[in-house]
């Protein structure tokens, strides 16, 4: 419990949390203002898709930074060494720290999104199930990138390293991963499409997008070809779940194995 309290106090003193929440609130409100002229029936769907498409520019990089700097701060302030010397192993420390980070970073955003539902109910025909799918999608994105950030913070020795790695990772998930798949897409056949599918959904951004668009009912896979059926060998929710578990587990294990105890700035 004290981990959560400590995390909360550190974050409200820092600027990162406010910057992230401020950005999310600003983007949401601006898009809502732009969307008020949309039709009552379809407005919610259009707004949510546009909001998601805008937020994916910010959420990965912001939460990468927040996760990374939150871990690195423990090194800077020597609390990590103290904890590891006394009662904690790195994995118990990271488990508690990750839990605290996720709770502190997520809660204000989720509260905001439930407040945001009020104007949505006024302007549009707001289906709660659809909205929950959207909130869950954003939540998964934040969880994954915070945890990847925790890995970055665990392995980095300096804040410059963190900034560099975080930007490279953001660039990778945002551009390079898809670009690499696009470069080999012409070699995809029925025999290897499952591998391609795994690689595609390993990008959490694509997994979340697919889940969101099918979950709110705007994207359908009706009348699929054989190739596409092979590609979609699981439900979008299952792909998202698998991608989520993979990244959470992989980054957690990598953090424990590759962590460095101290930074030098």
């Amino acid at each position, binding site marked *: 419990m004290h981990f959560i309290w400590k995390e909360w106090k550190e974050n409200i003193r*820092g*600027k990162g949390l406010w910057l992230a929440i*401020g950005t999310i609130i600003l983007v949401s409100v601006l898009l809502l203002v732009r969307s008020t002229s949309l039709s009552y029936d379809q407005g919610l769907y259009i707004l949510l898709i546009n909001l998601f*498409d*805008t937020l994916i520019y910010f959420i990965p990089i912001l939460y990468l930074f927040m996760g990374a*700097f939150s871990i690195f*701060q423990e090194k800077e302030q020597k609390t990590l060494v103290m904890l590891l010397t006394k009662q904690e192993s790195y994995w118990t420390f990271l488990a508690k720290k990750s839990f605290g980070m996720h709770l502190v970073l997520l809660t204000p955003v989720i509260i905001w999104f439930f407040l945001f539902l009020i104007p949505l109910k006024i302007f549009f025909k707001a289906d709660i199930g659809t909205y929950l799918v959207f909130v869950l999608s954003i939540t998964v994105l934040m969880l994954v990138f915070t945890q990847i950030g925790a890995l970055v913070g665990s392995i980095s020795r300096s*804040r410059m390293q963190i900034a560099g790695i975080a930007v490279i990772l953001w660039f990778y998930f945002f551009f390079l991963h898809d670009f690499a798949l*696009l470069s080999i897409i012409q070699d995809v056949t029925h025999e290897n499409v499952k591998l391609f599918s795994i690689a595609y959904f390993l990008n959490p951004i694509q997994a979340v997008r697919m889940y969101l668009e099918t979950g709110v009912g705007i994207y359908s896979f009706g009348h699929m070809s054989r190739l*596409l059926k092979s590609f979609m060998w699981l439900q979008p929710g299952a792909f998202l779940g698998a991608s989520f578990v993979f990244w959470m587990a992989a980054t957690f294990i990598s953090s424990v194995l590759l962590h460095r105890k101290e930074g030098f700035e």
Partner: protein
Amino acid sequence: MPFPEKGTAAQNLQAVIDSAKDGEIIQLESTSYIGNIVIDKPLTLIGKKGTIIEGDGKGNVISVRASGVTISDLKVTNSGMDRNSPEEYAAFKVYTDGNIIRNIVIDHSFHGVYLSKAHDNTIENVSVKGLGKGEIAAQGNGLHVYYSNGNLLKNNFIEGTRDGMFFDYANDNKALNNKITKTRYGLHYMYSDRNEFKNNIFTFNTGGAAIMHSNQLKLENNQFIFNYGHRSFGLLVLSANENNIENNTFYMNQRGLYIDQSTDNLIRSNHLSQNQIGIELWASSNEQIFTGNTIQENTIPAVTLGGTGRNDWSLEGIGNDWGRSFPLLDLDQDGVGDSPAIYKSSLYELIEDQELVYLFLKSPAINIYEKLNQLLDHDKTMFEDQYPLVNRRKSTPYLPAIIIIAVFATAIFAKRRKLLCISFGKNGRKI
């Protein structure tokens, strides 16, 4: 003629119809009547709130076999759903001309209203609810028009059927002000000529409207929104010629307009925005004219696949407004760009060869892919608009982006040194 007795009503509806005189008005009660019924003389059947005619689940609930029949203000349910039967069943099966079906709710039926060689009928304010997207193949169409001409279908609402409205060998019909959602194709024309569809709204369908092997149609003021699935489109024009497609809105579809093997269609003053592909133009599509359209904020504005047909991107000096993605000068202020709008893309090969590429159309990686291929000279001209429009372009800046950038800039420059690190670490204190 009011219905005789409430209690026995359910058993006697057919008997009452049989005993009615030509032109008689039968007022139904707020109760449930057992179908199936056959109307073989001109009469008027009027229900009220709570009036239901329930079929036996084995045939057509109401068969209209006389001209001049009017049926209104009731609910019809439970037609036969058997796909192996010699006949396709419907809540209403109309075999005759000049009938009116109005203010009707239909559910649990294979087809909603089926016009079979029936002409000059009016289907108005009919609501057909199908079984939903999971059951698309197992059910029929909302309104099915078969070998029937001159019918008027207006103000209907159709949800979750196979096709919303299906026209098969049906000419000179009008579909006005209908709303169709969550179907396979909202509107589907096969071998049907000279039909009009105006002011309809198509949302969340696999395909908004599909015009196949049909000529000389008029499509005006329709909205195609969120027809967004993997194979979706706002409007498909397949082997269809000489159609007028004007003033329609295509918004957030997988493809706005999808044209294949079609000739001589006029596409004028439509608004295509935020589609994955604005216009997908396949091989053997020639002589289309695109003029006065606003085509902007699509991932790909227009793509020609399987070879380049002879299509015109302007008419009499009026091209199309391609939005901010085509910065153009208009020094003489005549509303037409001083240079042509030319769009080159390398994606056409991928789209032709590999359907999975549609999964990436929203990815920012597409831009990198295009730029890289541009450098390597692997791209090809998709269209060349000699007279692109510039006068209608909005000069309003992209306000949200500017504000967000301003927030970041302020946050960063306010701190002056090691800003990013200070913002995120050290409890926000300078070091």
